[in-house]
């Protein structure tokens, strides 16, 4: 902005002008942030929410729940896995390509970051508990009654 103006303002207004510029920029930043956040924040779902009120396809979300026992299968390429995440009420199939976290096993809790593609949740990243003290916070926070069992089992 200061590139183009050559300082034609009256000196006595200088402070005011600087203040206004700063305020406009900050309010602009705030509005921009509010707008972008409402579009880009990724919401946390448990399988029951996903089934009840599915998000639009391709929107970045997080899915938390338990890896169903007996559901974990590795494809022939050796690096893509399919498994089912459940919360005791509903189940969602998940696909993930990559190296799984160390404590990712059937019957334990997981938070997956990714998006819905068709009926399958495609995960970009899996968060499992790092060690016995570290449980992803969202997992501890599922709050709904059905998630309590999940959390109890993860601990």
């Amino acid at each position, binding site marked *: *902005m*200061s*590139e183009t*103006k*050559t*300082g034609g*303002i009256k*000196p006595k207004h*200088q*402070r005011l002008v*600087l203040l206004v*510029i*700063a305020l406009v*920029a*900050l309010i*602009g*930043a*705030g509005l*921009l*942030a*509010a707008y*972008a*956040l409402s579009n*880009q*924040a*990724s*919401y*946390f779902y448990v399988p029951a929410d996903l089934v009840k009120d599915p998000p639009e396809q391709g929107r*970045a979300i*997080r899915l938390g729940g338990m890896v169903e026992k007996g559901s974990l299968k*590795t494809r022939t*390429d*050796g*690096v893509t896995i399919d498994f089912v995440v459940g919360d005791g009420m509903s189940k969602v199939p998940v696909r993930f*390509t*990559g*190296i*799984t976290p*160390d*404590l990712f096993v059937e019957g334990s809790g997981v938070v997956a*970051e990714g998006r819905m593609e068709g009926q399958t949740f495609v995960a970009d*990243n899996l968060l499992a508990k*790092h*060690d*016995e003290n570290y449980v*992803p*916070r*969202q997992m501890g*926070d599922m*709050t709904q009654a059905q998630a309590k069992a999940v959390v109890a089992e993860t601990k």
Partner: protein
Amino acid sequence: MIAELGLAVLWMAAALAALQLFAGVVALRPGGAAMTGLVRPLAIMQGVLVAISFLALIDLFLETDLTVKLVAENSHSMKPFIFKLAGTWGNHEGSMLLWVTIMAMSGGIVALVEKRLREDTLIATLAGQAFVSLGFYAFLLLSSNPFERLPEAVPEGAGLNPLLQDIGLAFHPPTLYVGYVGLSVAFSFAIGALVTRDVGPAFARAMRPWVLGAWIFLTIGITAGSYWAYYTLGWGGWWFWDPVENASLMPWLAATALLHSASVLASRNALRAWTVMLGVIAFSMSMVGTFLVRSGILTSVHAFAVDPERGSFILALLAIYIGGAMALFGFRASTVTEGERFSLFSREGSLVFNNVMLCGTLAIVLLGTLYPLMTEAFDAKVSVGPPYFNPVSAIFVIPMMLMMSVGPLLRWRKDKPGRITAVVAIPALVTALALLAVVVFAPGIRILPIIGIAVGAGLAVGSWMPLKGRNLRRTPLSVYGMVVAHFGIGVALLGAASESAFSTERLAAMNVGDTQQVGPITVKLLSIAPVAGPNWTALDATVTASYKDGAPVTLHPQARTFSSPPGERTESALHTRWNGQLYAVLGKEGDDGRWQMRFWWKPFVPLLWLGGLLVALGGILSLLGRVAHDVRRLRAEGKIAYRKARLENLK
């Protein structure tokens, strides 16, 4: 005995801080001059005592004194020496003691060396420093006592989180803390200057080396932390917009803005209220960062102390200090008289632009970091990641970086656009050519990396333009500092954009003897064998990599299993070439006996950290230049005073 000594000394230091605050307040009142001489020695004593206390804690960790709760919970007798040492601050209590230590010692150094400031402003500053320290002493002594004894000694310590058992722990937290807490000095200077109504160039000159020093440490700490996360987490990324990363970025943004506005105030006596305001904001951001990290309120690998009581304690401190400082600013802002005026098209104008853009970026990062907390109040769990931070912050960062090729060329106060168009044309041309080259030769890249490469290339060239037409031997060191730091920003941007645009990834299940291609590199898995370290065992893969048809080099990515405490960590292997880096990770063994392996070829990614280090180097050059200049001036003033005195005697 050592633990009791450490605790006693810490209490004494806290008492001295209380006394320092009291003496400072009395000294500033009419008739309190008797107390004036007391404040400086108190500040120095306090710094010495806290340093002793911190040394005591280091000693406990080095000896692995298992009767002390903190040591038992966080250390282990079998740990290598460097992690015993670094383990001192690899936990909540120890890191808060480090915080207080740095804070008290910097107060002591201010008391020892600061000679330019008006005496009453200095006393108000030291009283402010004592006031801020007191809150953290209270926090440490009342809710996070590092020296607490156990009723009886445990047979063995619980050990350190494997993720933290890395050489990075020895450097990354202390440098960041020096940066965070160094800003408390700027905060105290701002408070002092407001209290004594002494906001002017002298205040800015006194504050500037502290801001510069803190900023250098923050820059190094962020760069080191980014590289640590890059090679240790095995995700191949270097910045995750993790709340704790943001917590270090926000003070850096504020300190960068403060640095530039302080230089306007020091040289031109303008932007007075603005500089004071930024001084308050910069340290506030440090405290917000500490709050986010220490309260465990946000999900993060850094959040090792999840304790609501501590969270509310720090929140209370935040409210007192930030609220108090803002209130003081509100009351006194009208007494800060307007500084020198300037035309919008001037050095000052460009620095105002830079400041506003930095504050805009700061607002974006702050809102994005706090947004999950705000929505949680309405029972919606969200997380905010790169899809928000990258494009939205770019809206402010990109114009600022374009301006960085223009601003340093402008004259103070008033300038004409015609004078610099010929010089600005060079980086503008480079930017345009880079843009064209990327669009033509590398189609299909996303828009942000394209802009990043173009702007980074322009800045890398444009940053040198201020030296054009100058006598290079007579150019002050601080100008070189600015040039190098701006160049570093351009280099880092090139590295980041190139990583994001041109990285190739290969994820595969491999048998021993298999080869894979990743970018221009052919990798071959030769063998996998178990190896053992002092407190871990690992599976160690031997991988050869050859660039195009060149000679192969050997890499050893590992999957480590730690015994105390139990945990696993992938140890990535890196091979750095002049034009990029190969990154190799060993995953798990599949049911069919194949090994999951992950490789990245990341062209020019080392530029990113090289750029960060260049930025810090620029800061160091600038600091050296400023300090040398101040020392020369003090010496000259001393000589003049001496000659005057002798002349008087002769008379």
